[in-house]
């Protein structure tokens, strides 16, 4: 690998990592606030991608304009799932198990739903071809735009959690649910909001992802594992951690893809996930113990 290729791979990996960061924020938020891992997370990512693909091929809609629609759809599905499914699980010892099984069921509903609506093939959106050349390196336009949009959405989420009243309530519930309850925070409402937000972020990530990669309905669960891996690598509840973990995963995938094969690159998320869990279970920058 010569120096130019090396730098090019770093650029590519970082761009992908930006979208992975956005992918993981939803699962991170939901897990932090609700103690639930959404196994349908990756399927929502995939469905968001297919929505953007459909809007683009059918109506010629720019994926960046599809972004708000994807976010709204994700929010809607998330609120429904929390309101009618997860919200009804009794909060006893079996709750984690039941919520995992439920989201596993939801995952298949989404996969099959997307197959019915938009078929079983790999699809992508080629709305920005070509690349910009800066300093001898190629910046593929689609990747740059996806990276920038992902960064912007992440920043908005951060500002929301940091500065708005509702955002602070969300963080309060994730830090100490009992304390938040005492302060008069409506916890069930916050949970509905959080789950909706998590799904909305997933859908947004999917819209951006389809600009970079080709996706198929069966790939959803792979993105669940990736999102979770990023969260595990970075650590639960840490924005900088999520970003670092995402870029690390993006780089690892791009490099293994270049050096070995795309199939091995697909498995790298899982290997990183296991390695981090076995060596440093709290993640690189995380706050909670496993």
């Amino acid at each position, binding site marked *: 690998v010569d120096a130019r290729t090396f730098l090019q791979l770093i650029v590519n990996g970082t761009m992908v990592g930006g979208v992975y960061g956005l992918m993981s924020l939803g699962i991170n938020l939901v897990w932090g606030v609700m103690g639930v*891992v959404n196994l349908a997370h990756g399927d929502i990512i995939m469905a968001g991608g297919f929505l953007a693909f459909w809007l683009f091929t059918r109506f010629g809609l720019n994926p960046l304009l599809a972004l708000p629609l994807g976010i709204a759809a994700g929010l809607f599905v998330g609120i429904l799932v929390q309101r009618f*499914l997860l919200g009804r699980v009794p909060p006893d010892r079996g709750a984690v198990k039941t919520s*995992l099984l439920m989201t596993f069921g939801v995952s*298949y*509903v989404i996969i099959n739903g997307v197959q*019915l609506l938009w078929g079983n093939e790999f699809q992508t959106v080629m709305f920005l071809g070509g690349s910009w050349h800066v300093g001898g390196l190629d910046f593929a336009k689609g990747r740059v735009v996806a990276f920038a949009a992902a960064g912007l959405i992440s920043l908005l989420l951060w500002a929301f959690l940091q500065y708005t009243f509702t955002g602070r309530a969300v963080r309060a519930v994730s830090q100490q649910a009992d304390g938040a309850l005492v302060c008069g925070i409506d916890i069930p409402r916050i949970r509905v909001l959080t789950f909706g937000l998590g799904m909305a972020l997933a859908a947004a990530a999917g819209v951006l992802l389809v600009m970079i990669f080709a996706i198929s309905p069966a790939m959803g669960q792979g993105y669940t594992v990736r999102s979770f891996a990023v969260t595990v690598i970075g650590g639960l509840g840490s924005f900088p951690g999520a970003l670092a973990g995402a870029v690390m995963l993006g780089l690892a995938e791009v490099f293994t893809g270049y050096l070995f094969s795309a199939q091995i690159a697909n498995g790298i998320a899982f290997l990183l996930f*296991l390695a981090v*869990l076995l060596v440093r279970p709290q993640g690189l920058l995380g706050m909670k113990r496993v």
Partner: protein
Amino acid sequence: VIARAGYAALAVGIALVAVLPLFVSDYLVGFFFTTFLFVSMAYGWNLVSGFTAYVSFGQMSFFGIGAYTLAILVSRNAWPWPIAVLAGTATAAVLAVPLGWAMLRLRGPYFALGMLGLTQVLSMVASAWISVTRGGEGIYLPPEATLLQLYYAGAALVAVSVAVTWAVDRSAFGLRLRSIGEDEVAAEAMGVDTTMAKLASFVLASTFPAMAGGLYAWRLSYIDPASAFPAGYEVQTILMAIFGGAGTVWGPLIGGFVFSAVGEVLWARFAEVHLLLFGVMILVVLLFMPEGFIPLLRRRMMRRRAPVGPTPVRKEAA
């Protein structure tokens, strides 16, 4: 009386299974064969996830390992089919030791995601390791095992699954597993060697899907990544186990038969949406009968027999 009726039912059941192929079409024999595979996989899931609180979404990993080991062995040496199935099963059990050692250090969602990822990674390995697995091209098997032989092998597998689960349920080992499911820290404090117990259940549970995978490979007489790690089998297996009642001895049997029949109808009439319907059914079961059929039935019967006295109360969280 109940016990005697139970034995009688068991004897009748065994006799029925034994003579059934004489009277029905090959299609139905094939259907029952598939049902047997699902029932035993549901028992496998039940052992690892029903007794303890470790929810596995990756039992199909062992299905694939069993199928692939067998196919690779048979394509290189002409092994008789039952030996090949057993070899596949043994390989899965051996591999389950290090895998379980790594996975079982994870809890709750970590374990669940780890197992989900494991199946994906193995299926990638099967596609990528072309020198051994022949990748997407797949491996053809000689048509050695007849449907009838496979049917009886499947029935034997179900019998073994039930017997093992029954024995575990009554043993101190089963009690240890249940204590882990209730509260792992407390179990450890009571002196239960939780690591050993979990690992033992993990390895034991890996053998059922592995053997099912081997028999399935003979039935198809062909194996490739998509058939060794079939999409949707995991969700179907879990649905069967939780419908019947996770952690019970007879639940997977009932759930397996009910949802194989349902699955067959769905597959025949609504093939495009059968995964969606399985997903929805899992949700319905979890919402309306989270404990499953057997505990529900047991409670009904208890209530009828003892109308006075306290009704069993669902345990509250600590």
